[in-house]
């Protein structure tokens, strides 16, 4: 731990400098200045997030006498690069030399740092402005301190590459030399903070800043949740009910205790649904090492009462929700009169689509270590939600939040799984059972796949009415899928506004009679967020159906897509009848409208880059899809090849993304490259199925993830250039939704076979 790190941890919440000077390192700022919308260039939803957003340099920046600048990262790193990108923005505005910047990870403390949930593709979009303000405020304080020292007007000095320069006299002072004086100055009020001219950016928008953990990752030094090491630490694995809501009836603790190294067998109580993020319950085996715990669990021989979900059968459920989608559902958008237009249409085209449950399968399964001593709890955990984890731990242990510390490790993948802290609560329960000794809970891959929070399962049906010229005059889309709300509240059978807003009611098509309905569906397992969430089923149905309409009218799919999008305009679903509480990803519609000009642009761009319409060999096909999600516009063209045995390969993927201002283009590219691989994994293999309430898949052989030899060798990413005045939007998730429909449209172009049910599996077999 660096000295600067120690200082940050010692700074009190009220922000007094007392005690800090003694350590020889200084924290800039005097009083907390909240980020204010009026000082920002545009409004975002950041302040409406739980605990809002902060920008005061006091919280984020410290400068040691040797000039080393330490910046606090408040978002979890799960591969998107936010732990690098946010501090990089501060450093740029601070005019710091990145080689003299260190990044430290904030523990979960939302009262201090504001919202820390790393989810919703929000980190960059909610923080580019506050982090710029933070860095700029610190820079101005350093400049003011230097001007005072030299007795010159602050306007005559300038911060430049880690030092402040007085051009007239040629005098210079390093940041380390100025930190003490700067820290005694008030933080400039938000309306007096002068942001850099974007032309002067050193790092922002360049894509030349490697992730801060790059060396540690490549040398095995990086620490993930499962890597915590504490003196006297015990290792635990848990036998959980194989059916959601089940309970243990009996088990053989003595057999487990006979395994050398096993120290204790502990029952964990489950919580009746809706159980939010509470553990599933079960029987834990605590041992001196992981292997002994695993062997001990094998000896437990538990029997279970499966409870009400013991009959859950995903094949039967598929038939049920498909049937529901054939009947009218709750109307959630209703422009014009789709029923009447369908009845009078010259031609009606209908199709049904199915997307199964899937699991995140993060490379690092959930893992956490908890220690309880002297009435205080410490956790080391790979969590996307350290603030919420702290809150839940405090409740679970009956402690005050200030007595709970959540150390955020690196996350070996997140994708939404690690937004739920059930595994950390397990570790807390077990540490308590061991009188506070540190206990690490390890989930095996089987545990991860069989006790997950699953992506929803969905049946989608679209009926379109065409006039005599083949123009679409009516569109009726019915979506039927269990809701994530089911883990929070009882009797939830309809998609929530935040789910409906992900590609259903916000469909940006220029169709006068447009109706969206949502049928009832009960959840029989834990449903949770999965990267891009309900955009996956909605986007798959809508973008597959567009190509089906093209086929029905013998037209080019891209031309039909652009015709449906219609002329450049703002589509505002709030003005459509029956749309309730329209969800714009929690951000103001005025800042992030649905702009069909931008949607069209990514379609045109990707088509141009992929050379849409080019002559292809036999059995090759191109497919296109576009989807706006997380306020970002993404269009994808996939080239698919299906050989005479039905073997699918994807030689090339092109993706165009308009995410507003691109703060870190290199990490945007990596996210989109990765989205193509994950998109293909889900499309080809991604299915979690249930029989008698039990998950049928258990490891990487039965729940397959794409491997290097199956992966598209080339994903070219085309980023729409935007100035900093174009609000930055999400990146982590939006690459995923258009992939599967683009792939299935390409397969159709190559073979004439339309895939309406995912995963593709063996549907292409000759």
């Amino acid at each position, binding site marked *: 731990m660096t000295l600067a790190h120690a200082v940050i941890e010692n700074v009190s919440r009220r922000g007094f400098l007392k005690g800090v000077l003694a350590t020889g390192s200084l924290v800039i700022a005097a009083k907390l200045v909240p980020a204010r919308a009026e000082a920002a260039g545009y409004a975002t939803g950041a302040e409406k997030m739980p605990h809002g957003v902060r920008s005061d340099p006091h919280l984020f920046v410290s400068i040691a006498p040797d000039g080393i600048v330490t910046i606090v990262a408040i978002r979890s790193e*799960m*591969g*998107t*690069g936010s732990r690098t990108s946010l501090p990089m923005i501060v450093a740029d505005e601070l005019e710091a030399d990145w080689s003299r910047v260190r990044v430290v990870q904030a523990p979960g403390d939302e009262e201090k740092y504001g919202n820390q949930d790393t989810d919703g593709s929000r980190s960059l979009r909610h923080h580019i402005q506050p982090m710029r303000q933070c860095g700029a405020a610190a820079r101005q304080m350093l400049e003011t301190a230097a001007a005072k020292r030299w007795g010159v007007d602050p306007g005559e000095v300038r911060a430049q590459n880690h030092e402040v320069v007085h051009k007239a006299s040629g005098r210079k002072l390093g940041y380390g030399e100025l930190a003490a004086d700067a820290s005694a100055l008030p933080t400039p009020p938000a309306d007096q903070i002068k942001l850099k001219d974007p032309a002067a950016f050193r790092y922002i928008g360049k894509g030349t800043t*490697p*992730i801060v*953990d*790059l*060396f540690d*990752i*490549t*040398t*095995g*030094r990086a*620490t*993930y949740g*499962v*890597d915590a*090491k504490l003196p006297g630490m015990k290792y635990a694995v848990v036998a959980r009910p194989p059916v959601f809501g089940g309970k243990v009836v009996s088990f053989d603790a003595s057999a487990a205790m006979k395994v050398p*190294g096993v120290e204790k067998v502990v029952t964990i109580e489950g919580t009746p649904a809706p159980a939010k993020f509470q553990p599933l319950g079960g029987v834990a085996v605590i041992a001196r*090492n*992981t*292997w*002994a715990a695993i*062997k001990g669990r094998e000896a437990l021989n538990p029997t279970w009462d499966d409870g009400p979900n013991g009959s859950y059968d995903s094949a039967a459920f598929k038939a049920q929700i498909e049937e529901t989608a054939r009947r009218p559902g709750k109307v959630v958008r209703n422009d014009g009169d789709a029923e009447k237009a369908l009845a009078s249409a010259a031609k009606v085209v209908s199709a049904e689509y199915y997307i199964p449950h899937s699991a995140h*399968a*993060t*490379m*690092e*399964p959930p893992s956490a270590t908890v220690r309880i001593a002297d009435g205080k709890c410490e956790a080391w955990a790979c969590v996307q939600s350290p603030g919420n984890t702290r809150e839940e731990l405090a409740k679970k242990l009956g402690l005050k939040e200030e007595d709970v510390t959540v150390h955020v490790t*690196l996350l*070996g*993948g*997140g*994708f939404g799984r690690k937004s739920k802290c059930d595994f950390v609560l397990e570790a807390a329960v077990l540490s308590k059972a061991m009188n506070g000794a540190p206990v690490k809970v*390890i989930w*095996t*891959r089987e545990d991860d796949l069989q006790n997950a929070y699953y992506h929803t399962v969905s049946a989608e049906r679209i009926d379109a009415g065409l006039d005599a010229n083949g123009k679409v005059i009516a569109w009726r889309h019915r979506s039927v899928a269990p809701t994530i709300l089911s883990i929070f509240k009882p009797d939830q059978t309809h998609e929530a506004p935040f789910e409906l807003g992900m590609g259903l009611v916000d469909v940006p098509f220029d169709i006068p009679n447009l109706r969206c309905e949502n049928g009832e569906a009960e959840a029989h397992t834990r449903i949770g967020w999965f990267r891009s969430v309900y955009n996956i089923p909605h986007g798959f149905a809508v973008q597959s159906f567009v190509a089906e309409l093209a086929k029905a009218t013998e037209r080019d799919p891209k031309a039909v897509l652009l015709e449906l999008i219609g002329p450049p305009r703002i589509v505002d679903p709030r003005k459509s009848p029956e749309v309730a509480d329209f969800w714009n990803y929690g951000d103001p519609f005025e800042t992030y409208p649905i702009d069909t000009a931008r949607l069209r642009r990514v379609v045109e761009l990707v088509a141009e880059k992929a050379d849409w319409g080019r002559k292809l060999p036999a059995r090759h096909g191109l497919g296109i899809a576009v989807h706006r999600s997380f306020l970002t516009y993404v269009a994808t063209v996939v080239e698919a090849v299906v050989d005479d045995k039905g073997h699918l390969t994807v030689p090339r993927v092109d993706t165009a993304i308009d995410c507003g201002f691109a703060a870190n283009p290199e990490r945007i590219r*990596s*996210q989109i*490259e*990765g*989205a*193509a*691989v*994950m998109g293909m*994994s889900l499309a080809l293999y991604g299915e979690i199925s249930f029989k008698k309430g039990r998950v049928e898949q258990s*490891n*990487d*052989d039965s729940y397959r*993830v*794409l*491997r*290097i*030899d199956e*992966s*598209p*060798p*080339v*994903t070219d990413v085309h980023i729409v250039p935007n100035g900093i005045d174009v609000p930055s939007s999400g990146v982590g998730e939006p690459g995923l939704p258009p992939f599967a429909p683009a792939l299935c449209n390409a397969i159709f172009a190559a073979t004439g076979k339309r895939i309406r049910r995912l995963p593709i599996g063996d549907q292409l077999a000759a």
Partner: protein
Amino acid sequence: MVKLQVNGQTQSFDGDPSMPLLWYLRDELGLTGTKYGCGVALCGACTVHVDGEAARACITAVSDVSGRSVTTIEGLDTNGNHPVQRAWRALNVPQCGYCQAGQIMQAAALLTTNKNPSEDEINSAMSGNICRCGCYQRITAAIKAAATGA
């Protein structure tokens, strides 16, 4: 009692000889660079070198490596500057990074036996290593770069 070399140091272990090398390295020696991913040799996250050859530590019992020499990611290069590690950094391969130790160990083993692998040979050698973030395109490019010294 099992005796073995780990990153050049002699170690002895008198615990359960059937314990997978993975858990021995992680829990007993504190070498956490080697990762658990599946436990059944399907994902490659636990790849180490045994006498210079790539092996999955999750299905290798400690007793299997008695008298043999194990190299983990921590011991691949004293300064972390093996050509594969350098190439990984030059091309910004990792996203979450969790699988990368296994990928790097597998790639390093490949380049020991094949100085200039073709794309097919890379695919074949690396197909046992899963990356859920989907860094494959860059992994291939980094192996080529490491091979050519680019």
